[in-house]
C-alpha cells in the first residue's frame, strides 16, 4: 500500500500515515464546500475552454454562491483534504464495500490478556480503561466457567447511536461504530444505552495527555483521547485502512480471534494468519451472538467454549488501582 516506510516507532508512523494519505482520492459530496469552490472555479474555466475533451457524463454541482452548475465529470478534481479534516471525513465514510466482522473462539481463550495490553497501548488508555476486557463467565451453576473477551459489538441496530443527541457516535457503511471526540458533549447517554457495557469515559485527563498534545486527532483511533468524552473499541479502523488486522487480533498468542469481511465470507486468524470461510466457521462450531434477544444485531460472533484443553484460572491479579 504505502511504499515509503522505513523502520520507525508506532508514534512516528501516526504522523507518516497522514502524509502518505494525501493522495487519497475523495468521493465527491455534492454539497461539500471544498468541492463547491473547486466546481465554481472549474465552471468559469469551462466557459472559456468550451471545446475540451468531454466524457458525456455531466454532473450537477452546487457552487458557493448557491448556483447549480453542470460540469463534465472529467473536469472535476476533488480538492485535497489534509490533516484532521481528512481524518474526520474518511473516518465517517469508512472503507467502501466492506462489512467487518469479528469471530471470537472461546475454546481457545486462556486469559493471556495480550489483546488488552496491545489495545491499551494503541489507544492511549489507562490500565482500568478497556476497549476490550476479558471477563470470567459462568452461565449457570452447573456449567463450566470460561474466559470471554468482550469488545464493542458494533451492532447493526446500535442502541448507543440511536440515543446520541449530536451525531458524535455514528455507524459507518462498513459496519464500524465510531466516536468523534471533537463532537461528543459528554452526556454519557450512549453508555447507559449499551447493554454490553462496552463504552468508557475519560473522567480525568487521559494518559500521557501532554505527549499527545498538538497531534492531529484521528477519529479512527480515538487518539489523542479527549477529557470529558467517550471512547470504545473501534475495530482498529486505522489498521484496517492499511490492510492490517486489528491490534487485539494480531496480539493474541492463542488463536482466539478471527477478523474479516462478511461480504467476502472470509475471516483471518490473527495468530495463525489462516484465512477461513466465515459461514463455515460459524456453522461447524455453533457460532452465536451475545444477547441477540435484545435485537442489537451484533457484528461480533462467539464460538462456544467447548473442548477446552487447559484449566480455567481465576484471574484475581488483573485489577488496577483506584482511579
Amino acid at each position: 500500500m504505502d511504499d515509503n516506510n522505513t523502520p520507525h516507532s508506532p508514534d512516528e508512523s501516526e504522523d507518516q500515515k497522514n502524509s502518505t494519505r494525501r493522495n487519497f482520492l475523495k468521493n465527491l459530496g455534492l454539497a461539500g464546500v471544498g468541492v463547491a469552490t473547486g466546481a465554481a472555479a472549474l465552471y468559469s474555466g469551462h466557459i472559456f475552454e468550451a471545446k475540451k475533451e468531454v466524457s458525456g457524463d455531466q454532473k450537477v454541482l452546487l457552487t458557493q454562491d448557491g448556483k447549480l452548475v453542470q460540469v463534465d465529470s472529467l473536469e472535476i478534481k476533488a480538492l485535497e483534504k489534509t490533516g484532521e479534516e481528512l481524518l474526520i471525513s474518511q473516518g465517517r465514510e469508512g472503507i467502501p464495500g466492506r462489512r467487518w466482522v469479528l469471530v471470537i473462539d472461546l475454546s481457545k481463550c486462556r486469559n493471556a490478556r495480550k489483546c488488552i495490553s496491545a489495545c491499551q497501548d494503541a489507544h492511549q488508555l489507562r490500565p482500568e480503561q478497556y476497549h476490550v476486557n476479558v471477563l470470567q463467565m459462568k452461565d449457570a451453576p452447573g456449567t463450566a466457567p470460561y474466559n470471554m473477551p468482550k469488545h464493542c459489538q458494533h451492532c447493526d441496530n446500535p442502541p448507543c447511536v440511536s440515543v446520541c443527541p449530536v451525531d458524535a457516535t455514528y455507524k459507518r457503511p462498513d459496519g464500524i461504530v465510531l466516536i468523534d471526540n471533537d463532537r461528543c458533549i459528554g452526556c454519557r447517554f450512549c453508555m447507559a444505552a449499551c447493554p454490553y457495557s462496552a463504552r468508557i469515559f475519560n473522567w480525568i485527563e487521559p494518559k500521557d495527555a501532554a505527549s499527545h498534545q498538538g497531534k492531529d486527532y484521528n477519529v479512527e483511533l480515538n487518539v489523542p483521547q479527549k477529557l470529558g468524552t467517550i471512547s470504545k473499541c473501534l475495530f482498529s479502523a486505522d489498521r484496517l485502512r492499511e490492510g492490517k488486522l486489528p491490534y487485539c487480533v494480531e496480539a493474541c498468542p492463542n488463536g482466539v480471534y478471527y477478523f474479516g469481511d462478511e461480504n467476502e465470507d472470509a475471516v483471518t486468524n490473527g495468530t495463525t494468519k489462516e484465512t477461513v470461510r466465515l459461514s463455515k466457521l460459524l456453522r461447524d462450531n455453533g457460532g452465536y451472538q451475545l444477547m441477540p434477544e435484545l435485537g442489537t444485531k451484533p457484528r461480533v460472533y462467539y464460538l462456544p467454549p467447548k473442548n477446552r484443553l487447559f484449566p480455567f484460572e481465576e484471574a484475581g491479579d488483573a485489577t488496577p488501582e483506584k482511579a
Partner: protein
Amino acid sequence: MTMDDNQFTFDKITSDLTHHIRINKGFLIWMGFLTVSLMVCLYAYSIQLRTGLGVAGIRDYVTWGMYLANFVFFVAASLIGMLISAVLGLIGMKWLTPITRIAETIAVAFAAVAGLVIVSDMGRPERLVYVFLYGRPQSPILWDVTVITTYLVLSLLLLFLPLIADMAIIHRKVDRLPSWLKPIYKVLSLNFTDNPQQNKIINRAIRTLLILLIPAALSIHTVTSWLFAVTSRAGWDSTVFGPYFVSGAFVAGSAAVIIAMFFFRKNYKLQNYLTDLHFNNMGKVLATVSLVYLYFNINEFLVPGYKLKRADAVHLHELFAGKDTLLFWVVQIGGLILPILFMLFHRFRKPLPIMLISVAVLIAAWFKRYIIVIPTQEHPFLPIQHVPQNFVHYSPTLIETMITIAPFILVLIIITLISKFFPVIPLHETAREKGIEHFKFD
C-alpha cells in the same frame, strides 16, 4: 375561615397581599446566606470544570449519578405548575386561586434550574450549543431540551399574565414602595386599566396557555423517563415509566407547594388567605397523587418480580434485600406508605402536620430518584470485572454533593426573589372572587 367575605375590602386585600414587598433585614440576611452558599458550591463546580467529571464519584459503570437523579427531581418538582393551574384549574376548582401563583413560581424556578443541572452532568459543557447545531431528532435528549425550554416559557407566561393586573393595582394603589420599583411595575402592567377588552385578551391567553401546558408538562417528564426507558437495562426497561414518573412528579410537586404555602403564610402573614381549608385540600391532593404513585410502584415491582428474569431478579434483590435495602424501604415506607396513611386523617392535614409530612415526602422523593437512577447501573448484564473498587460501587464525593446542592440554593433564590417583589397570592383574582367587581383606575 377567620373572616367573613364581606369584611374584605379592596384596600385591605391590597395591603394584606402587598405589605411583604419591601426590603427588610430578614430578607437581606436570608439572601446573603443563599448567595454565600451558592458561591461556595460554584467554586466546587469550577474545580469540576477545570479537572473533569472525575471529581465526582461516577465512573464507567455507574455513569449517571447524583447529578442525573437531581435533574430528574428538578423536572419532577416543576411539573406541579401544570397540575395545580391547568388540570385542577380547568375543571374549575375555585379554592385553588391563592395557590396558583405559588405553584407557578415553583414550576418556573425548578424548570429553569433543571436546565442548569443537566449542564453540570456534561463532560463537555462548553459544547452545549452542539445540541442545537447538530441535534438529532431521534435522540430523547433533543426532545428533552426542546420540551423543557417550551415548558419554561409557557410557565413564565402563565406566571406573568395574571401579574399584569396586579402590577397595575400595585403601581397605582401602593404608595410605600421603593421609588425604583414603581417604574418597573408600571412597565410590567402594560397600561392595564381593567378594561373588558384587555381582560378578554388576558383570559384568552391564559386559557390557551393552560391547554398548551398540559401536553408540554406531560412531555417533559415522560421524555425524562424515556432517558431511562429507551435502554434495555433491568429496572429501566419499563413501559409504564412515563406515567410512573409523572405521578411521582405530582407527589414531589404537591409536597413542595405545601411547604412553600406554609412558609409564605407564616412569614408574609397570609393566614386569612391561605387557610386551613387550603392545607386540608392540598393534603387531599397529595394523598390522591400519592395513591396513584403507589399504584404505579406496585406495577413497577410486582410485574418483573413475578417473572424474575435474570437481570431483573438481581436488580430487585438488591433493592428488596440487598445493598440498597435500607434506602429503598425508608423511601417507600417513610415517603409513600406512611404519609398516605397519615393523610387519611383530618388532623394530619392541618398546616403544621401536613407541612412536616410534605418535608418527609419531598426528601424521600429525591432519594427515590437516586434509587431509580443508580442501582440499575451497578449490575449491568455482563459482570463488572478487572476495574478498581470505585468503578464497582458508586459513592458520591464532597465536590459532587456541593454541585448537587447548588441548584437547590438557586431555586430558593429564584422563589425568594419572585415572592418578595410580587404578590404571592393573585391580587386581582382574589379581589374578584371576594365580590369586588370593579376597580377604580384613573
